[in-house]
């Protein structure tokens, strides 16, 4: 087992920079998810660790060894490919035994180790099958067994669940996580599925355009995104542009077109900063407006008496999701809020509603001159 250390890793394809001066350190036994949209450089990074791509600049260390220029077969890294890349002409047994044969392990030991790992991944009795005779999930577990049986120092997973159907994919998340913890193996897990990353990872590295936008625990990534791009990419959120009017430690007061919003933000924020306020759809509480103005703003007021974290608007769209109803609510000022709430009580289109949300669930992100791209992203995620 070993740690992984990537230092100033850069990879160019012709004039496109796929990975740009990337630094990442994995502790022994840690699972890090590289999360990002396609083309962000996450797979290239993984392929460089595996040795399929050579880094243009920077170094890769596995454990104590510098493996930057080593061929893949010298790296002792177990890899699972998106399409599993099982050997179609070999049986399950022969597939799993392949890596041990390459290591010149004695035949009887190969037999014992292959049978043991097949049992472990619940493929006992299928050892004589060919890959094409297996279901997608079984192929997936064969690929995992083949990568793990060689006792690799690190495990590299390239979108391992992308080709499975939704239900199986969810089960396999937990399965891979428990297997990884049982083997205590340092793992890099590439995915574009943020739910997968949140469930599986010790830490998530959100990648965009060849760089790591943010590295942190799933909760940090989800609740405390450092950049608008991360806030937008991970989970659904309402991003509202505004200006800081008051900053007290980590508490911010933000003036937006929809009204004043109070939330949490890094203490590096200053009065007058342009920011984006992120409010997750599931943190908004929705209530009908009963025509009694007295109810309005009864819960939260700031010092001046005007309502904060309380918005009034009209339902413009609603979609039934089964366990939730997904509303779009026009709160004025051109801002459309997305709200996900329990299916009862339910509100109809054009009904007037009140939205309230606690200060602790609002996160303020500095708008770092990416407002154009964020605006366009926001159009998609908000819609």
């Amino acid at each position: 087992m070993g740690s992984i250390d990537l230092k100033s890793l850069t990879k160019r394809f012709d004039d496109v920079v796929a990975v740009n001066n990337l630094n990442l350190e994995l502790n022994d036994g840690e699972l890090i998810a590289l999360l990002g949209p396609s083309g962000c450089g996450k797979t290239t990074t993984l392929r460089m660790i595996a040795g399929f791509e050579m880094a243009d600049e920077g170094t890769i260390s596995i454990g104590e060894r510098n493996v930057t220029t080593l061929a893949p077969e010298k790296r002792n890294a177990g890899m699972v490919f998106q399409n599993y890349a099982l050997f179609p002409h070999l049986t399950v047994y022969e597939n799993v035994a392949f890596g041990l044969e390459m290591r010149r392990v004695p035949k009887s030991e190969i037999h014992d180790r292959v049978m043991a790992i097949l049992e472990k991944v619940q493929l006992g009795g299928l050892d004589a099958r060919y890959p094409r005779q297996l279901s997608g999930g079984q192929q997936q577990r064969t690929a995992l067994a083949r990568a793990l049986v060689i006792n690799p120092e690190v495990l590299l997973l390239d979108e391992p669940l992308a080709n499975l159907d939704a239900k199986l994919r969810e089960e396999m998340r937990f399965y891979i996580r428990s297997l990884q913890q049982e083997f205590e193996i340092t793992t890099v897990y590439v995915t574009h599925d943020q739910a997968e990353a949140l469930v599986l990872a010790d830490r998530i590295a959100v990648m965009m355009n060849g760089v790591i936008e943010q590295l942190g625990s799933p909760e940090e990534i989800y609740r405390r995104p450092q950049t608008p791009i991360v806030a937008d990419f991970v989970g659904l959120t309402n991003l509202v542009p505004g200006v800081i009017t008051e900053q007290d430690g980590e508490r911010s007061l933000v003036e937006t077109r929809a009204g004043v919003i109070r939330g949490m933000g890094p203490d590096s924020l200053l009065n007058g900063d342009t920011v984006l306020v992120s409010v997750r759809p599931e943190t908004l509480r929705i209530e009908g407006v009963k025509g009694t103005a007295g109810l309005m703003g009864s819960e939260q007021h700031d010092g001046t008496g005007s309502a904060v974290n309380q918005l009034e608007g009209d339902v413009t769209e609603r979609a039934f999701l089964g366990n939730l109803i997904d509303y779009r609510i026009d709160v004025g000022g051109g801002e459309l809020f997305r709200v996900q709430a329990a299916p009862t009580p339910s509100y109809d289109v054009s009904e007037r509603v009140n939205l309230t949300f606690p200060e602790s669930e609002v996160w303020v992100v500095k708008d770092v001159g990416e407002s154009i791209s964020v605006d366009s992203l926001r159009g998609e995620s908000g819609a």
Partner: protein
Amino acid sequence: MSTASGANRVLERITRIPFGLNRMILLIVPAFFLVLIFFIGPYLYLLYMSFMSQAPAAPYESTPTLENYSIAIRDSFNWRVIRTTLQFGVLTTLITLVLAYPLAYHLARASSRVKGILLILVLSPLLVGIVIRSYGWMILLADTGLVNQALGVFGLGPYSLMYNQTGVMIALVHIYMPFMVLPLAGSLQNIDPDIEGASRSLGASPWTTFWRVTWPLSLPGVAAGSILVFVLTISAYVIPALLGGYNVMTLPLLVVQTVSQLFNWPLGSALAMVFFAITIAIIWLYMKFLNWMMRGLT
């Protein structure tokens, strides 16, 4: 809807063939008759003729005899010709396989733009008629030809490259190369590069990866290509005739000579039948062998 489906039913009834045959069978009827009339028919006729006696003023005389087969099999000259012919077949197949494999691999992994250009280059030997191309080779390979002149500059040669087996081999390899490259490239293209990557990450060197993964997975292409090239080579007529200058005798040349110069149609037919039987046996054994090698692939 109901009228349309009604019309369909009527159409179905009209076009249905008795004996429970599916209408799809109709699709192969033209090709079937073409093969029957122009291939199987003549072959059966040859078979018939091979059991007839030679006649002075006609192709054959309708007196059944085994004489032709007796001559064909007992004359050691015939066996030497058959051996030469099969040697050409095996050697051409092996040489094209070795030369075509790296080319096909490159072709299979090339970007689509490069692939188009490479494909045209690969097919280029087929763009010129076989006779013209053979004369082209004669200009290059003659004792005073371009190759020997060029070698002469370095004080080498002249080598005898024509009117012998060398010349025939060079031309055969050149011309049948595309028939090896294309099936090979097709099957190599079906191999996911990640499968080779998986082999490497499991500890296999590039060389081991080739022999344990790439080669076995490319066997369907090897089978198709080698059978094509072998069959085409042993039945080649123009190339051995022009570049061998009748110093090199192959079975197709011998059959044509027997028929058109000795006017012995029955003997020529018998020779063709003997060779046909040998070829079928070789290909059958070869397919058996390949199927055994590919036992995991199907």
